[in-house]
């Protein structure tokens, strides 16, 4: 026997005010620890404040400085370059690895998968300290180069003006590739076998198969991977802090490092807050773009 419809004529599953009650605790925590401090940061970004004495109003000064001051513009430029290493390369390499691993039967596959994923498990501080010694003037990398007679290529990687940023970037690639690969491997298992069979019947080779079946099938995973890696790349702080401290000169300073540096080392809290807000906006914009472009849906 069917129950009488409730007095409201809403269909089941329609939002009901009682629903808000369920999310209220989470919302309260979110509001208290995320939205409220963020609002404060926005407020601070309109002030000149040294963290101690009375603040004075700055208007839009801290924000216009982001465009006019080259020492503030540069970190954002560096962050975008780092995205190539943190996001683009890991996704490409991860796709290649996943395609290879799902197609060819590799002996000890679990072993390789674990090894490639391992950097994800390590704390960034550990990663930074380890790579700092690998990239040292007489570290592992330079020793290896010298051992094979490539002495001319050996250089103080983290202290070299041109190479410091790519060197830090490579560490990022090393960390993020495993994550992408694992995501893609999981996604590839979800693609129906029939599609591959159909492709092969149509005479597609490995490359064609990759572009026609694997890649479209992994759209969702690619979007997730890009979102995660882009965020990781833009909020990169620990690696820079440990390896170069923004140097040589300011060649590897990035926005997240600059936030810390200005707030705690230069006593320019307003400017630090403005960078933080700008970084948040940038991350938001990029992730929305990614989910629209790659996933093809409105975020």
């Amino acid at each position, binding site marked *: 026997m069917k129950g009488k419809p409730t007095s409201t004529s809403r269909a089941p599953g329609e939002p009901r005010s009682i629903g808000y009650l369920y999310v209220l605790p989470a919302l309260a925590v979110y509001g208290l620890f995320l939205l409220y401090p963020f609002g404060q940061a926005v407020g601070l970004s309109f002030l000149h404040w040294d*963290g*101690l*004495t*009375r603040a004075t109003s700055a208007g839009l000064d801290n924000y216009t400085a982001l465009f006019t001051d080259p020492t503030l513009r540069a970190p954002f430029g560096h962050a975008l370059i780092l995205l190539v290493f943190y996001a683009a390369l890991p996704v490409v390499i991860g796709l290649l690895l996943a395609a290879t691993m799902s197609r060819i039967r590799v002996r000890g596959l679990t072993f390789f998968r674990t090894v490639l994923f391992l950097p994800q498990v390590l704390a960034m501080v550990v990663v930074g300290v380890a790579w*700092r010694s690998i990239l040292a003037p007489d570290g592992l990398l330079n020793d290896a180069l010298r051992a094979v007679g490539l002495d001319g290529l050996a*250089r103080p990687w*983290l*202290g070299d003006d041109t190479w410091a940023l790519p060197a830090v970037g490579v560490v990022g690639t090393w960390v993020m590739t495993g994550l992408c690969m694992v995501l893609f491997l999981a996604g590839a298992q979800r693609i129906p076998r029939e599609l591959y069979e159909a492709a092969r019947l149509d005479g597609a080779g490995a490359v064609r198969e990759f572009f026609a079946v694997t890649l479209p099938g992994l759209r969702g995973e690619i979007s997730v991977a890009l979102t995660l890696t882009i965020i990781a790349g833009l909020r990169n*702080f620990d690696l820079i802090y440990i390896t170069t401290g923004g140097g040589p000169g300011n060649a590897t300073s990035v926005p997240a490092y600059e936030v810390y540096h200005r707030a*705690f080392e230069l006593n320019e809290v307003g400017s630090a807050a403005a960078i933080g807000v700008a970084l948040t906006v940038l991350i938001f914009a990029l992730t929305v773009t990614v989910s629209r472009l790659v996933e093809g849906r409105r975020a």
Partner: protein
Amino acid sequence: MSSRFTRRSVLAAALAVGAASCTPGTDGSGAVTGDTAPGGGNGIPDPKKAGNVTLHVWDQEVRGGTNAEIEQLNKEFQHTYPNVTIKRVSRSFDDLKTTLKLALSGNNPPDVVQANQGYPDMVAFVEAGLLTPLDNYAGIYEWNTRYPATLLNLNRVSVAEPGASRRFGTGRLYGISQTGEFVGLYYNKKVLKQAGVQPPRTWAEFTDSLAELKKADELPIQFGNLDKWPAIHTFGMLQDQQGAAQARDTVLGRGDGFVTSRTTKAATTLTDWLDRGYLPKDANGLGYDDANKKFMAGQGAYTITGTWMLADLKKRLGDDLGIMPPPPATEGGKPATTGGQGLAWSVTSRSAHPEVAAAYLDFITSEHAADVMTRNGVLPAVPGKAADALDPKSPDGQMVDAWRQLTSADGLVPYLDYATPTFYDTSSAALQDLIAGKASPRNFARKLQSDYAPFIKKQQGKASSGASDS
């Protein structure tokens, strides 16, 4: 300040960032202003009469020797005054620096804190009225005669005259330091001997020995600058060779700045040493700790760094280690180098027990305290009897001897990064560029001046710009 940079702790930084996001006030916290706060009583206060007191002390003495010395002194102080309990919070320099600001402006500031000299910390705290002036206590406890004026002045901040900003290095006393430190010339006796080189007595002998060491296929000076700040000390020493008094005046905001032949000459010497291979040319890619490790392993005849490294270097090199002030121009002449004293121990303006805090400050800087420091391998600002008893040929004995030479010759020049609130940043980046060959000595000097000149101008003419500094 940069001397005390230790390996940075990301965790603490992250915590500090988290804490900062919750700071509600931006109003300077309404503390009493330093200028009107009383400086203390008249007779020597007796902490025993203060009733039960808990003294909250924040310091940055986390290294082996200094930590042991403070722990012992704290224990003794509590033993002498059973009614006083000391609650100690000890953090590395970096961690203290990032959290102290929040703690001081909060509702429950500690009673005694270690504040770094210079504009970013001590002057900023005084400007916000967070520290108590200690001039009266300095009179009562005779700190004025205990310490050489050069050292005591580093802990002074001027009262802001109408229209001007506060200045560091003159004015009221806001702290007292326990330890001394200077950037010295360390040498490995074994390496020098192998190359047939005597420890130099003059600057010329020193530079000659660099060429000889190079010829003997030894690295003359071990040096790593990946951490950015070590070059400040190396360059500071070179600049002090060109005139210590002028260098000091510049740091204290009354000199002729950095576009001078002295600065360019010092910078040229640095690049020249790099070109000749006296310093490792990959210095920008080598960490400070790694360079010190190499020096301990016998790679490098000399290294130029502070006395805070002595205990560590001695552990590996033993009596092969030697330390001296940079050799003067003529034998027996006056040496000069970058140096000063440890972070100032200051009393906060909202401490409920300033007299007990002052008695504590006196206790940890007393003659007895100096002996405790010496026994723990720490250089006291004013060496005592235990220092006299050291073997003058041992590294510790040499260090104390060098310190006495430097203080009696007035040869200590404050750290360059005290010069302006942003000078650590500017000078360390500029030095990396200089070492990388990206900037010429002349451009390097201009870069320093571009930070220095506007700050000094602002210091002198704040009123005319009409900015409020309420």
